[in-house]
């Protein structure tokens, strides 16, 4: 029950006095309660557990992580070796 994949909010509505939404998981739609992400808007991504959205995914932070990982790759490339320490020409042998 702790497994969760991110989904996109495609519709927000009220039901029995609670803020609810339809969430799109790569094409499959499902319902979730949005009471714990009161400021969420249609088009934003969320992590849903057992029927409740628990966070709004932060696009800026996601972009920053990828920036850091890209730098890691580039730093190694500048030294002329891949991250295994092999000359770059040999990199990709295992692909």
């Amino acid at each position, binding site marked *: 029950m*702790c497994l969760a994949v991110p989904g996109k909010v495609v519709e927000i509505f009220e039901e*029995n006095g609670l803020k609810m939404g339809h969430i799109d998981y790569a094409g499959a739609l499902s319902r979730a309660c949005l009471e714990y992400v009161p400021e969420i808007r249609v088009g934003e991504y969320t992590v849903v*557990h057992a029927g409740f959205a628990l*966070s709004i*995914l932060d696009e800026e932070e996601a972009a920053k992580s990828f920036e850091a990982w890209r730098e*890691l790759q580039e730093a190694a490339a500048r030294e002329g070796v891949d991250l*295994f320490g092999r000359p770059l020409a040999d990199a990709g042998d295992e692909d």
Partner: protein
Amino acid sequence: MFKHLDEYRDPALARRLLAEIAGVARGRWVIMEICGGHTHAIIRHGIDLLLPEQLELVHGPGCPVCVTPVGLIDKALALARRPGVVFTSFGDMLRVPGSRESLAQIRSRGGDVRPVYSPLEAVNLAAQNPDRQVVFFAVGFETTAPGNALAVQQAARLELTNFSLLVSHVLVPPAISALLAAPDNRIQAFLAPGHVCTVEGLEAYEAIAARYRVPMVPAGFEPVDILAALLLLVRQLEEGRAGVENEYRRSVRPEGNPAARRAVEQVFEVCDRNWRGLGEIPASGLRLRPEFAAFDAENKFELEGIEGREATMCISGAILRGEQKPPQCPAFGRECTPANPLGATMVSNEGACAAYMHRP
């Protein structure tokens, strides 16, 4: 391409991170992933087999289905057998064996046991069936507590007198502390639970990192997340640092989710809990506050004197403590399979035994 998913499964990026880990790791280190969601991802993607051999990953007790004591499952079974009761539960609790049978077996004999996706569905069932008692099996960690808290608040708002929870909530930080305080502890660092931290924030993890001098990194659940988190942990271990570094920034904020924390605080209070495999851990669970006693199934129904018995062959206790791995169990894949589980760790998607059975 699906956003926030595919990019975290990029094989080239995963290989780069693996290589960086191999480049940094010098010593022998034992790292526990406490969360069953991580165990599942690690085994499924074979991450444990790709790491340099001096890094050992041990699987933790972070599977709510797995740590629910047999005694409580027997109480659930007693309620489910009772005429007039609609017993509702997350689907993965249904096949967990109690002392003699499972909820699924009661259901196949005609008992009214219904899997629900959200506790709010159980509240709706109660509203629609005023002549029946609807009980919801409120299990799980910090991630399911907010939903269960809201279900109780909603039932109170609707003035339902036929809705109650059988509560077996558990908390992750006290379990981590109990593992670290054990005299024979081998764990030197933790992959912290990404979604538990999404709800509760990082405060408790910072306190543990400082007190026991262990690095802690909350991580997302995709292969790139796990590898990036392992890299942060190995760097800390090699440099002799012990702090909390947040790999899962897109979801985990230092303060957690304030609205969810507030609701949990309003409805539940901290209590001692017995964990399957780990035994009694002080202040490691949640129970309903006295104001909500009317929604407490243990209060409402006569459930005293029910004591569970474990299957004798099952070594899931040692597996939940990280002492043994599933293939070391003599029943693994023989007497015990996902179709015929002897222990809870074989039932749940997040259980270590089931994860090993599903290794591609």
